[in-house]
Structure formats: C-alpha cells, structure tokens
C-alpha cells in the first residue's frame, strides 16, 4: 500500500429500509494503487454504488476505515470531505451527467471554479487528449453518448485526482464505444498514475482492467478472472 492509493479496510455500511436493516457493504476490503484500474462487477443492488459512495466520501461507513492518499476520511468534517473530493477524487458518472448549460470546454473548467486546485490540467489540452478538441464549443445535448462520456472523463481528470471513481461508464453506449471509453479510462489511469475503481455491468470491457472483483450482497469477492 502506498499513500497514493485508495484503501477500504473492513468497511461495512448498514442502513434502514422501513422496518428492516440492509447491509449494503459487508466488511469490504480493497486496495487500489496508482496506475491501477480495478473493476467491480455484480448484480444490481449488490452494493457496487455504495462502495463508490463510501470511497468518495459521499457516505460515511457504519464501520471500517476508508483512506484516500493516506488520509482517513473518518477524521474529516463535511467541509474537509468536500475539499478532498474537489482536490483528490475524480468522479465519472453515467452518460447524462454533464451540466446542460455549459459547453464541452466549460464542463472541464467547472470543477476548477469550486475552489483552489493545485496544478490543474489545462482544459483545452485535456480536451485534445480525450479526442474532443473539435467539439469544445458543443453542449451536452449536441454530443453523442460516447462524446459526453469522454467529456465526463476529462472533467474528472482536470484536477489531477489521485483516485478516479467511475460509475457505469458504458451504461448507455454501444459495444464499440464502450470499448473505446474503457480503453481511454485505462490509458489515463496508467498515464496519470491514478487509482481507478470502476463499477460496471459490462463484462466485455473487463479485459482493459488490472483486476476484477465481484460483489454480491455487499461482500467483495477476491479477484475473479477477466
């Protein structure tokens, strides 16, 4: 384990659902190092998104430890958690999560307006790197699903995060575009030395990943074959 990785140690997340309690995460342990892309697969409701939420500081675990770049999230108040998400974590969401009013290059500038970011990447250059420089002035509704996802990936990388948390990036894409998007994610992960956790249902893209874990009923299984 290095400082530049994400570490989940014995993480459990239990929440209420009416009269019942649901264990969304059950003693989950996961370490992801810099330059490594790890896929989490599993059926709906298995706890994949809960894992991303806990790793990204959006939910506090019921028990266990989450560390991002060596920082224990349990010791951070809400303001510091927000700051940590801004500076150390990049989120890639499902396809339609661009801000409708902004064009492509402004989508990348957006996270830089939230507060101070050390040594951010230049939005136009980054746009070029993800092959979208020719669509810099287009807004989300003027782009295809694959193009929107490329913008989303670039937006997540503009702050030079240590951790990239990716939620179903190919959910609305055809087979070829899915391959292209996950290949781009894997390339950026290795090129930028980011620790990437990707939640996906899409088994066809798993060969781009360094490890694949299956999640069932909140439990994370040991790496499975790709």
């Amino acid at each position: 384990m290095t400082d530049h990785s994400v570490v989940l140690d014995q993480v459990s997340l239990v929440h209420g659902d009416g009269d019942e309690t649901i264990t969304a995460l059950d003693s989950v342990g996961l370490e992801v190092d810099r330059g490594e892309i790890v896929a989490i697969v599993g059926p709906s409701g298995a706890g994949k998104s809960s894992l991303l939420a806990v790793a990204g500081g959006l939910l506090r675990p019921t028990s266990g430890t989450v560390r991002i770049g060596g920082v224990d999230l349990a010791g951070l108040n809400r303001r510091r958690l927000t700051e940590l998400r801004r500076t150390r974590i990049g989120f890639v969401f499902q396809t339609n999560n661009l801000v409708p009013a902004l064009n492509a290059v402004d989508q990348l500038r957006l996270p830089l307006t939230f507060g101070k970011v050390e040594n951010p990447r230049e939005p136009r250059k980054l746009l070029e790197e993800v092959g979208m420089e020719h669509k810099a002035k287009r807004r989300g509704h003027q782009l295809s699903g694959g193009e929107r996802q490329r913008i989303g990936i670039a937006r997540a990388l503009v702050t030079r995060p240590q951790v990239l948390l990716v939620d179903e990036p190919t959910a609305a894409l055809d087979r070829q575009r899915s391959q292209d998007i996950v290949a781009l994610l894997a390339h950026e992960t290795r090129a930028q030395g980011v620790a990437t956790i990707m939640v996906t249902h899409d088994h066809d893209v798993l060969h781009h990943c360094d490890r694949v874990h299956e999640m069932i009923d909140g439990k994370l299984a040991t790496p499975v074959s790709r």
Partner: protein
Amino acid sequence: MGSVVALIAILMVLLSGLSVGLVNDGVSGLQRMKATSFAFQEDVGKDAAFSRSVFDREAVGVWAEQDGVEQAAPFGNALVNGKTDRDVDIDLALFGIEPESFLAPEVAQGTALSGAPDEVVISATAAEEGVDVGDVITVEQTGAELRVVGVMGEQHTFGHVDVGYLPLRTWQEIRAGVREGDQVPDRVYEEITAVAVLGADVDLPAGDRAAGTKSLTTEESFGASPGYTAETSTLKLIQGFLYAISALVVGAFFTVLTIQRKQEISVMRALGASTAYLLRDSLIQSLILLVASAAVGVGAGLALGAAVSTTAMPFALEAGPIAVATVSLLVLGMVGAAVAVVRIVRVDPLTALGENR
C-alpha cells in the same frame, strides 16, 4: 420566467406612472405652493378641510406673530365650473390669494396678478385644454367674469381640476355666491379657507392654540384633497400586492428550477462544490435573470408609458418612483429566489451515482 418578471416590471412602471399622475392631478397645485403648512377651521375633518373649512381671516395676523413663521397669508379654495368666451368648458379650483403675498404664482406666459379684481392666472394644463391668455371665463355659479392674464409654467391641479389663482376678494365673492349688483355683506370679505404659513421650524400646535385653528403640514394637507387618500391608498395596495406576487412568482420559479437542476447540483456537489458555492452560483444566476428581465420590462414600460402620457389619463413618468419600484422588484425577487435556492442545501450528492447503490 424572464417574461413574467418583465411583465411585472411593465405593470410596475405603468402603476408608478399612474400613481405619480394621480398625485400630480390631485395635489400638484398644493405641491407647487410655497406654503409649508395650512391652518384650517379648528373643528373641520381632515379629509374635507379644503372644501369645508371657513373661518375669520383675523387668524392670519395671529399666525404671522408665531415663532418661526416667516410669512402667513389668507388662502381661499373653491371648485367651480366655467366657460370661456370661446366656448371652452373649464372646471377650475379657484385659489384665492392676496396678489402681493408669498402665495402669488409665477407665470410662464402673460402677466402675474396685478390686483385687479377680474384677473385669473391658470395652470399650464388648462392652457392645454384650449384656454388662453386674454380669454374671459364666466363662472357658471355666479356669472362672475374672470380675465385670463397669465399661464403658469407647470401643471397646477387640485382634485383633478385645473387651478386658477385669483384675488382673494373676488374668490370671497364667488364663494359667497355674490352676483353682479348684489349687496355684499362685510363678513364675506372676512372669510377664508385657511391660513397659508411659510416657516421651516414652526410650532404648529402652539399656533393652533393661539389662533383657534387646526394645522396640517402641506404634505398632510394632500389628504384633504378630494379623492386623494382613496386613490393613492388603492394604488399603494395594488403595488404592494404586485411586489408580493413578484416575490412569490420568482420564488416559485426558482423552486421549480432548483428541483429541475437537482441532478446537476448533485453532480457538482459530488465533484467538490461547497454549499456556499452552489448558493452563491444560484443567487448570481437569479440576479442576472432578474436584472435582465426587469431591464427589458422597465424599457417596455417606459415606451408604453410615453404613449399613455399623451392621452388624457393622469399619468406621469418620473425617475424616482420608477427606480424605487424597480429596486423593490429586484430586492423582493431576490428574497423569493433566496428562499427557493435554500433547497440546494438538501440536494444529496449521492443522487449523482444513480439508484443502484
């Protein structure tokens, strides 16, 4: 939403113009007098002071001796119907004054009152209705003939009627219904409506006690103009409701907008936007939208108002009231927006991750 705010701004400009127009029509004759207060008959009601007050002019001397009073002069008021020798019908609010007193009006055309009993100086608005210098107005109630010797430079109206200044003695005869050839009792020439007082720091209650009168400052006396209080309070009520409606409309719009932006806001929160950033961002958006919409609305309202100003409707566009109305619209709109965007605090960044957590 922008169009709704613009429409409200148009309505506000028009209401403001109507309000100022009604005030001008109602009391511009009083506003443009130099008097700082009027002393009326002691037991007369405030809302009918100008029409019902009658008392002896000896109170003028008492008032002139009061501390702080620079000048005091008798003042008479009566509403009459008249017709010129060129067959122009004209209603007049006759202001009876002593031509040498501080109440004497300045004229823009013709000459001022010289003291001759049949002279009258009329409002600029009466001239716009076709009455001119040299015309002779016959007062229908008494048959008295008044020669127009001058026209004032601005609108001077009282209770929506054009003001005509005339010598106090002539006014006293007309008020008493004296016709040519009638024997005029001496007491007629003792009666006045009010004592007009000029003085910056006058103890009005003390003066009233000494003179047996009831004083109103000039501004308070506006309420004694026929219909003034009813008209202005109605318009103020409408304006108040319009402000409240604008706050509600803007608040409702931003509530809907915030709900529509819930996903976008949750994404920004997940990406590291603080609550303060999101609130500031939303309020700036609200302000830009409000200012732009209000600017369009005020512009359209001014254009429409300029057209209305040329009609007989009492309407006047003045920068002050329009600025107050616009700022009020913006402030209340921002209050509505602020209440609405507080919902941002409750937007959960988890929403950005979809429903499968």
